């Protein structure tokens, strides 16, 4: 059995709670027939404030509305819900995905019929740039850093040796893999 740190466990539980709270509110909006919208603090330079006392860069009060019903934003809206579902799933299953993992987990085709009833398809996202951007959106939307969502962006150490690790339903045999197996 892999070691699960107590801190990680508490962080996970907190993340799950924030997810539930935020998305319950969104679901309520939808079920009440109001337009589905994410309200997200803007991540632009103009909306960045320097906190002198704490010597930190903070986000300002400007917000952006990502509305599903806006043709220009509907794809991004879909991507945001997709990323949210994947991260939530990882939290629940005690996983530590990298951003590349998240990109691959989310990438699949959406099949639909166009106005002439022909079958068409598109990818949920094309490049990792798109999924990375959605991760950053979710961080500010939830008010949680990616570390608090147990997402790894770079390697923090290596686990090597004659060891088997269970991650969710997956069993990883480290002796059979290179050092990149468990970053």
């Amino acid at each position, binding site marked *: 059995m892999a070691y699960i740190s107590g801190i990680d466990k508490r962080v996970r539980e907190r993340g799950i709670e924030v997810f539930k709270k935020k998305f319950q509110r969104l679901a309520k909006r*939808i079920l009440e*027939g109001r*337009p589905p919208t994410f309200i997200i603090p803007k991540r632009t330079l103009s909306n960045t404030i320097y906190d002198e006392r704490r010597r930190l860069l903070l986000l300002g009060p400007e917000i952006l509305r990502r509305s599903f019903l806006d043709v220009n934003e509907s794809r991004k809206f879909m991507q945001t819900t997709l990323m949210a579902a994947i991260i939530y*799933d990882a939290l629940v299953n005690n996983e530590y995905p990298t951003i590349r993992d998240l990109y691959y987990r989310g990438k699949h085709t959406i099949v639909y019929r166009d*106005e002439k009833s022909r079958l068409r398809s598109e990818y*949920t996202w094309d490049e990792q740039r798109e999924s990375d951007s959605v991760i950053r959106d979710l961080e500010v939307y939830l008010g949680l850093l990616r570390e608090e969502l147990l997402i790894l962006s770079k390697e923090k150490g290596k686990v090597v040796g004659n060891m088997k690790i269970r991650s969710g339903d997956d069993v990883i045999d480290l002796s059979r893999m290179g050092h990149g197996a468990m970053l």
Partner: protein
Amino acid sequence: MIAETLTPEKFRALSPAQFFAKYREIAGFSNPTRALYQTVRELVENALDATDSHGILPNIKIVIRRSPENPSHYTITVEDNGIGIPPQHVPNAFGRVLFSSKYVLRQTRGMFGLGVKAAIIYGQMTTGNPVEIITSTMGSKRIYYFKLRIDLKKNEPVILERGSWRKIRDWHGTIASITIEGDWSRAKRNVIEYIRRTAVVTPYANIVFVSPDGEIIYYKRTITKVPIPPKIVKPHPHGIDLELLKEMIKHNSEKTIKDFLINSFHGIGYKTVDELLQLIKINNNKKVDSLTENEIKKLANILRGIDREVILQFKDSGKYKTLLKMLQEVFPWLSKEKIIQAIEYVNKILVNKINKGQLERLNSKFDPTKLKLEHIDALVRALKKYYPRIRPPSPSALSPLGEEIIIEGLKRVYEPEFVTAVTRKPLSYQGHPFIIEVGIAYGGKILTSDKPVLVRFANRIPLIYDESSDVAWKVVKPKKDEKEKRGKEGFDWKAYGIEFPAPLIVFTHICSTKIPFKGVGKESVADVPEIENELKLALREVARRLRIYILKKKKEEEKRRRITVLARYVPEIARNLSIILRDIMGTDGIEPLLREKLIEAIAVRTGIDKMKIMKTIENVGVET
């Protein structure tokens, strides 16, 4: 005259039949290809005249058979359900050139009374075969059969066989068969195009065509309304010439001039006749046979009225040194003072209209050969003040198709997504009434092409050859570049939302008691300004309607595109949210509920039916 004195050549008279045998290209029989097309055309047009002109819904069957003995000989058989021909008239109707029931002033398909006979003569000369006719009139108890040829020298029918039998079923109509030398492989395209276009103007007719190769084309009747047959009308004074006037006087010698004018012409009433006769100083009660040659000339002159053509005819004769002299000759019933007044009036309007560099003052000494079109049009307007008002030519002699028939016809042949048509009000050119009809068909099964496809008709006859020289093409063809934009020719399709290549068919129909054909082939219409202008106005009207349709369609497409952009993400979003929410809300029932609500949100925003939105994600699975 001169020829007689200079050469010893002997002159011999040609019978009308011999004339057409010799100059067959005049009637459209210049080669086997054209002859095959022309024969089909003549027989079909006779068949239609025997049916729709009499209010009968036509059933027409056209069969072309290749002769088993000689592959370049073809038998063309056309059957109709028309009024039939009384047996005593059959020999003359098919065997004597220039014998026709159509020599009256009304719009008919044929006009010369020689078409079908030219085909018979051509067949006789190339294959030696006689024409065969089976016919029965509506009331008749018998069906009659004839086999005859034309004696070219005597211009007389020669009956080779005749017979009759009792009618068993209630049939009336005519079946005519002519065997000619033809070239099906070359004529095919135009024959089929001719039949297709005939089908456009006759949606009320069943038309069956069987080709020599056994192909069958069938146009099924889609409407049971037959256009109102044209009436016979009196000639309009503006359309008269000296010869015709003399002829009319000969047949009315008993009458006084006043009665003659009122009874023989359209558009002249009691008031007008007094004004006219006062102008040419002829006593109202004078008998027409006592009119002097000079008086008849004056009468012919004043009846022709005032228009551009009248002046144009005289302008370049070289006989006239001054404008005054010319106008006095053209309008002898106007006093010198009145003509000078008119010229001065023209000067006044030209000063206001033409810039200084172009300014040319007219005066009574002005050389008439230097008259420009704008001078002439202004003069016509000025002189008309001194002319009694004659009602315009009667359109009752005309038989326009009407918007409904054009629309139905275009629909049944081309199956477009949009179609519209307009019938303009009757007008006249040179004393001949005419009506312009224009239709437009767009999209659907119409093939896309670089130019609009023009289908032309004159008095309900399709015109296939010589398109580029026809006035209709001049109006319909797209304007090419900026330079041409300022020019008069062509149509600015871009301004109406059409960019070529586009799937577009333009239909034009000119009906008139006299179609101004170019040349004798009767395949293209000359550019008469009045006709050109009406075509332009009619085309603009239908093109405007098309533009409205196209704009509306684009808007709707945009809306539908918007819906698919939104709706395609619904299943994905519903699934994602349910992954997070099912732990709170308990069951999996949340996913379909979210789907439903998201689609509802799209429906509320776009105003489009939920069922239509659902089509985007119909039978589409969600990947996990």
